[in-house]
């Protein structure tokens, strides 16, 4: 096949500078045709989503806000290994580890736990790599349709354990969203 015939879209047409015919030159026929097209659109169903009242349905593979999971006994699963922080391409996760004491057995599953666990929501790109990296199945991206709230200072976008860790009842009832 000659190179000039190859077309990726299959809609290739050669440009011609042919003179307009009489009917094209007086425009009227073409204008009427165009107006028939627009009047069809006038009565068509509108595709606008009236946002605050209607919301778009989310994709089934949608990834929303993070949650730090608890196990069946209500203990936090995270062991502060830092693999999520390592995997994070946006470097949004920071944590500080601490050792579990005797009287914290009912709070943390592993001997080492995250004393501080922070996700900077201004940096997070919701890619889900932290979820993939976690060996303890501790961090998940939920299908929660809550969004990060608008703020006027940067500190309000750093989500600590108070916002991330799932509450005991929600964890028991498997209400992850």
């Amino acid at each position: 096949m000659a190179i000039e015939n190859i077309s990726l879209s299959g809609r290739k047409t050669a440009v011609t500078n042919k003179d307009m015919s009489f009917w094209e030159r007086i425009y009227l026929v073409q204008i009427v045709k165009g107006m028939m097209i627009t009047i069809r659109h006038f009565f068509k169903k509108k595709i606008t989503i009236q946002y605050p009242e209607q919301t778009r349905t989310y994709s089934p593979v949608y990834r929303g806000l993070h949650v730090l999971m608890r196990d069946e006994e209500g203990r936090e699963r995270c062991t502060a290994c830092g693999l999520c922080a390592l995997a994070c391409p946006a470097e949004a996760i920071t944590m500080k580890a601490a050792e579990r004491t005797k009287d914290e057995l009912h709070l943390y599953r592993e001997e080492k736990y995250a004393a501080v666990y922070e996700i900077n929501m201004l940096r997070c790109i919701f890619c889900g790599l932290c979820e993939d990296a976690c060996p303890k199945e501790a961090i998940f991206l939920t299908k929660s349709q809550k969004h990060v709230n608008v703020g006027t200072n940067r500190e309000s976008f750093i989500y600590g354990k108070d916002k991330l860790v799932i509450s005991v009842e929600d964890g028991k009832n498997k209400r992850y969203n």
Partner: protein
Amino acid sequence: MEISFIIEKLVLVLIIFALTMFFALYSTLAERKIAGFIQDRYGPNRAGIFGILQPICDGAKLFSKEEFIPNTPNKLLFIIGPGIAMTVSLLGSAVIPWAEKFVIAGVEYVPQVGEINIALLYVVAVMSTSIYGIVIGAWASNNKFSLLGGIRAGAQMVSYEVAMGLSLIALVMMTGTLSLREITEQQAGFGWNIFFQPLTFMIFLVCSFAECNRTPFDLAECESELVNGHHTEFSSMKMGFYMFSEYVSMFFSSALISVLFFGGYNYPGMEWVADNWGVNIANIFALLSILAKTSFFIFFYMWVRWTIPRFRYDQLMNLGWKILFPLALVNILLVGLGVLLFK
């Protein structure tokens, strides 16, 4: 002159002014709605039900904007420019006959501000002055884009006025009168002029698009290349006046088209209604009929605007001088022949 006559006419002027303003106000909303619907959107629908309060919000916004006058030696012209545009657009509707005579308690009231026998001439005169508002405003803006817009508008209106005047001559040859009331009365029932003179109608329609500065002939405004043309430097209500005068003149020219070609206030069965239900009821229907025709043409203007793109300047001149002007002359010849043969 009787004092009651003056009062009657003043009240009528006020009513027609209010009517024109109402139509112009809601034309702005209709324009945005129609643009939306044609583009598969809804258009403004937040202010009130169906966005019915949107024009009021727009007006309030325009009023509260900063009044800006550029550093120009022609401050006076800059201020009177929008005023001229608005006044001239409002003047036209004075001669439109809105209905037949109302009879209330034995007194006849004519719903037409000035029943003059040279109404059509008056209309052409008023329309030709509408260019002054634009050109004066553009000149006084001290801005090259405004000036370019003004020059274009001037050239455009002058060239289309020729074809428009000639097409009206063809119409007048048939009707034999310049009075809009008589022209309307000749079209009683369904004898609309459009059926006798479709070519005249086409020429007149195209020319009135150009006279109103509407797309596809909005080269005066031309926001894609001249910023905003003649009203680039205008702000607040001055800009509002220019914008509004466009809608007012659209209303007027729609009314004029319906009077000249679509029977004005006539509707089929008008005499029957007058005989059975009384003159006033028939007249109210007549008023509604002309308003419906006018509304249709306002819709038509918008429909065209959101369908076809703007003409290039040379295409515009070509169309005006090489197509419409000869066509109007040929049309006069044809109509003359027709009048000779069939009248």
